[in-house]
């Protein structure tokens, strides 16, 4: 009995030592990989920041209206955002590689699944961001054009454009992630179709006079005198 207990304890001790002996080098390797990753991520982020500053990306971003969107979302400048993103993507990548070296069963599969899913997440985020920038830019262009042309309720046009682009971007992002594809497609078709039908009905029934005037203007039969301004030059 006593011998059996001692043998059991010895076996447990040997197993523990064996496990530690097996785990410790892997752990050290993981720590090394994470530290190397930190260094690599820092260098990559720093280099990207320098290159983007040299290429004046922030000016381009300002011109495209992207910087304003970032400011609205309380995010840093485009250069800073990309540099920080590359830092974190690189480092998280190294951390995951390091964890996979530990050889913990089950975790490896989850990590590889995450790796497989990462590009899709990245693309979906990119689609959302571009959609946001495009919606902002085009809605502002529509607002300015409507105001300067003297069109009534210019914000309706501006918001309609913003809304349509958002819906489109969100649908595309969800489609990219593969989440409820059929539902997203059906929802998009319903929302978009309903909006267009609603506009058509509103314009055709509610705005018969407006439709007639628009057609008259289009066909050149308008009896109303065109608004003239003094010659600017």
């Amino acid at each position, binding site marked *: 009995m006593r011998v059996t207990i001692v043998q059991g304890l010895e076996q447990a001790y040997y197993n523990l030592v064996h496990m530690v002996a097996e785990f410790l080098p892997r752990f050290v390797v993981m720590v090394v990989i994470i530290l190397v990753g930190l260094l690599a991520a820092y260098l990559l982020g720093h280099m990207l920041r320098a290159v983007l500053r040299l290429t004046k990306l922030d000016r381009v971003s*300002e011109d495209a209206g992207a910087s304003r969107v970032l400011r609205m979302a309380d995010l840093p400048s485009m250069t800073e955002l990309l540099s920080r993103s590359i830092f974190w993507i690189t480092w998280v990548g190294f951390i995951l590689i390091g964890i996979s070296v530990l050889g913990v069963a089950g975790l490896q599969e989850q990590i590889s699944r995450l790796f497989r899913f990462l590009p899709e997440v990245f693309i979906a985020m990119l689609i959302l961001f571009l959609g946001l920038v495009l919606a902002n830019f085009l809605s502002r262009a529509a607002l300015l054009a409507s*105001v300067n042309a003297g069109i009534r309720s210019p914000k309706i046009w501006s918001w309609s454009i913003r809304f349509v682009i958002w819906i489109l971007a969100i649908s595309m992002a969800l489609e990219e992630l593969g989440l409820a594809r059929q539902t997203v497609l059906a929802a998009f078709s319903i929302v978009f179709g309903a909006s267009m039908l609603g506009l058509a009905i509103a314009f055709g029934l509610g705005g018969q006079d407006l439709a007639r005037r628009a057609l008259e203007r289009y066909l050149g039969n308008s009896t109303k005198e065109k608004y003239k301004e003094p010659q600017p030059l």
Partner: protein
Amino acid sequence: MADETFLSDDLLRQLMSVGEVDLLVGILSHSSANTMRRAAHYVEKSLQQNFVRQRVAIISVDGGAAEDAGSDYHSGDGQPGDSLNSKGLSSLRTIHRITAGFNGTPSLGLALRTILSSSDLLRAKACAVVSPVTSSASPEWVANLLRPAFRDNFDFVAPLYSRHKFQGLLARNLLYPMTRALFGRRIRELYSDEWAFSSRLGTLCLNEEDVWREEAVRSRPEAWMGISALTSDFRCCQVYLGEKPPPPDGAGPDLVEVLRQTVGSLFWLLETHQQAWMERKGSEPVPTFGPDHAVTAEPMEINRARMFEMFQNGVKELGPILQLILSPETFASIQGIATLEQQFFRFGSELWVTMLYEFAASYHHSVINRDHLVQALVPLYRGKIYAFLAEFSEASAADMEAVSEHLCLEFERQKPYLTEKWKVGVEVKS
């Protein structure tokens, strides 16, 4: 030196057959072939009467109608003694006619580049650029433009016109006073359809390789050329041409497009020549040939109520955009006057100038997309013009001049404010 690869083979062939000339007249247009033919006829008449002994060439640079115009353009190839001559004088030399078409998207900038390259290859001593519409007004215009550049060694010759007191209000309230205050020379018509220049200035501009794709140069090359002359301390002058004819169809050009081209171009020029304008103080007159510009005051019907409504609506709807462009104090002032009744509405010179300088600084710092920024100015310009029309509907020409001078001095007075706003942003950005 002209970039010969930029010119088409056909144009090079024509230029080589001409050889060298003393004077070159470029007709810039996207007009119909008939308009071009008529313009060429008037230009030729002017040259035959006024430059009898000089070797001259006319180059027609036209986007849409080049082929059409060209088919008939060469046929009357400037024979001396054409029936055009009314003074009994005729050119002793052949007047050459050249046609240049576009390969790419036509633009005034591309057309000017073609004229500059041709002028360089033909070794022209002076060159005038005219539009088909205004060159038909009087044959004397072309000669009057060319004379100072050819005989008096001026490098840039700007036109002066006689106008109705309510025409050219953008030039009167914004372009002239702002350009004068910042670049220090009193040239009234930098944004015009006709101007002349020396071979020296032509070569300087032609050697600018990087600017030809810029929208400001593509749409308003004359302003860029004028400012280049001013900032390089070239000799500039003005010459009185006469009454500026109205646009061909009787309607004015689209205001938004005009502002995008002219104000956008001016703001871009401020950025590209910032060293030059920041160092200058005050302003000096430039030599003027003929009378100074004249103002006429016949009654004119303008829908002022609609203009005021568009101003008020613009301030209300574009509030968030204007807040990004203007300082809080200026924005509050604009909002304040937008709530006034029509009969009490005034847009003071001080507020107008402050607002424009803040627009210019915000353009420089790209606070929002630059094209959007210029478009956001349109309702405010309408407000200023409404106030101007209301205030000076009964004013005489002398009163109008006094008001213009006061505005110019206000622009000069507030110039340090623009410099400050301009530099503050630079420091923050860097």
